[in-house]
């Protein structure tokens, strides 16, 4: 017992003081390698500092200032944050952001998941189909925004309204983007359309990673495709689904282009998300400090969502 304790103590001491010969060698090697490692990662650190850390610090700094137009800035401390939460327009954007984020994520991931499972039954034959759907993900949101304007147009030239009339339901033709009750959902559908490609590819890859033996065993046991999907593919594709949900959530939280093109945050601010609010305050009204405070709130939301996911993904990494 005593010997073991001493050994444990030595080991412990070795860990902290590097007195164990093996650990000491490792530490010396690490020390020798440190400058080289630092040199190798220096470009990344410099890039990170310029493109992420500095703008982030600057945004946080700006959020404590009242900057209106080209006037001289005034320090207001947490004043912008207090004003932000008292602003009914901002409170409205929080709810809109929540609906938009959950709506686009659920629709994109659900459709992507179903399509991925269907494609998994005939991977080769569905390749062109997958490429086409993924291509929508690569299209600029501004371009897809203009495409959806053509679809939602209020007049007879709008594709959706034309289709509705062609099917014999002229009474259902509608100004989809001009109605506060339909504009947000029209926007969610448009954003989900381009968002399906990524979940499809991620979940499809997760399904492809399922060992063939598992699927073959199910087949041998007489499992029907629906049962295979439900009991094997769905649970085993969850890692892909989790990544897809995570990426889509972040994308939806930061959405701007498609809102700018399709609705401009209207009608009567019904489609104004935090991202768009931030743009309106910072760029249209040039209240940079106020807009920066909204950005910090958005950043916190992104951190709250992404931290658990990142921790989970990196838990096993050394």
């Amino acid at each position, binding site marked *: 017992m005593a010997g073991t304790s001493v050994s444990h103590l030595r080991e412990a001491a070795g860990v902290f003081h590097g007195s164990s010969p093996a650990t000491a060698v490792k530490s010396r090697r690490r020390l020798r390698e440190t400058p080289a490692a630092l040199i190798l990662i220096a470009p990344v650190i410099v890039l990170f500092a310029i493109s992420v850390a500095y703008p982030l610090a600057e945004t946080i700094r700006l959020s404590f200032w009242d900057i*209106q*137009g*080209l*006037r001289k800035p005034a320090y207001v401390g947490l004043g912008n944050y207090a004003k932000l939460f008292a602003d009914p327009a901002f409170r409205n954007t929080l709810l809109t952001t929540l609906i938009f984020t959950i709506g686009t994520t659920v629709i994109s991931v659900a459709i992507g998941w179903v399509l991925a499972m269907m494609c998994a039954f005939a991977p080769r034959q569905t390749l062109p189909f997958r490429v086409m759907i993924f291509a929508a993900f690569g299209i600029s949101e501004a371009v897809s925004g203009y495409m959806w304007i053509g679809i*939602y*147009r*209020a*007049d*007879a*030239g709008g594709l959706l309204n034309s289709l509705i009339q062609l099917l014999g339901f002229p009474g259902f033709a*509608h*100004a*989809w*983007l*001009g*109605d*506060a009750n339909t504009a947000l959902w029209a926007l969610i559908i448009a954003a989900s359309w381009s968002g399906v490609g990524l979940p499809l590819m991620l979940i499809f890859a997760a399904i492809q990673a399922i060992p063939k033996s598992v699927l073959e065993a199910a087949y041998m046991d007489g499992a029907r495709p629906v049962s295979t999907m439900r009991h094997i593919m769905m649970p085993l594709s969850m890692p892909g689904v989790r990544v897809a949900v995570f990426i889509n959530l972040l994308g939806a939280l930061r959405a701007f282009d498609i809102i*700018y093109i399709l609705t*401009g945050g*209207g*009608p*009567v*601010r019904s489609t104004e998300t935090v991202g768009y609010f931030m743009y*309106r305050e*910072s*760029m*249209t*009204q*040039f*209240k940079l400090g106020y807009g920066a405070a909204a950005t910090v709130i958005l950043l916190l939301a992104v951190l709250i969502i992404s931290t658990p996911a990142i921790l989970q993904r990196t838990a096993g990494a050394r």
Partner: protein
Amino acid sequence: MTSSIEFMPEIRRRTLLAGVGGAALLAMTGGLARAQETVSGELVVLNWIGGSELEMMREIQKAFLVKYPNVTIREVAITGQGDMRGGIRTALMGGEVVDVLFNTWPAFRKELADAGMLRPIDDQWKSYGWDKVISPAWKELGSLGGAPYGLTYTFGDRSGIWYMKEHLAKAGIAAPPKTWDEFIASFDKLTKAGYTAPVAIPGKYWAHAEWFETLLLRTAGVETATKLATHEIPWTDPAVKTALSKYGQMLQAHCCGATNSMLANDWDGEADQIFQANAKNYLLIGMWMNNRAKNDYKLAEGKDYGFFQFPTLGMGHDDTSSIDAKELLVTANGPNPKAADAFLDFWTSAEAANILAKAGYASPSSNIDASLYGEAQKTATQAVASSKLQFVLGDLLPGDLVDEYRVQLQKFLQDPSDTNADTVLAAIEAKAKESY
């Protein structure tokens, strides 16, 4: 008989005068040529204007370069939609150093001048003799604290209504309505002729406020509108409500179709509904519509489409009009002030003014050949000349107030009732209290 001796002084005088005149002419032309030669280098112009208006501007810039061959122009282009001031501020604060910038917002001119970014142009006004070609009213419009900063190069009547001639003919309307009652009555005739929404209301961003702004002028006058712009009277003032009620009267007379359709479109989309789709009839919008109708829709001014001044309301203020103007500003830190000044001067020349007129724009320069104006532009220019004028209200309001004002007017479009008018005006007033 007249002796040669008596003639001599006369001959000498004439010779002398001719000699001096010739020398002066030579000096002037030579001097002008030299002046043009001394203007050289790169001129940086910050521009946010697009579409066919940009083509007109490029044509003027091209003519300027012919006159000043030693100058090159570099354009800093700001693109976007809606209010472009944000993009301009970003460019300037981001370090873009420009010589000249185009502006249409008096409040923005003040903001730039207060920040020390502008150079006053009173010396240039004297040396180039702009007083001879630009009326004092335009000089006053571009001035701050008595010092001129902006040189107005075009202006527009914002109280005029565009229409397609064949639409009115089809509805049996012989001439555009002159009174408010005639205007309201025309909706019924146009609806019966197959046009479900006679008035195009572009409610997506800002253009739905145009109706309110002219109605405010016509019901309450220029002084009240000015007081409202500076918040000397509240938005809940009865005079403001009267204007909004007139707007409500128009909406309740089934002028404009479904509210959702109004809120789905900006002015260009609504213009398409009139000039391309032949689905709507009247559009209250600025004079840039003239250029779009000619160049984008390929319509003939005066033949295919027309323009009439806002109908009279008989409330004592029918001699008022809302106007806009675009001006050139020179920056305090521009590297080429000589070229910038010459550029400004060029916009007052007959050459530039006539390019503007041919493109469907009005010029305040007396150098313009007014015969180049088409029917619509003649109507507009005449209306501006004979009206008490007020600059577009939206461009005079502080940034966050104008945003709230437009959103609240969207809410009024959704419910033009008397009760909602009070709610809407109270909401604008609440924002106004924070903004001034």
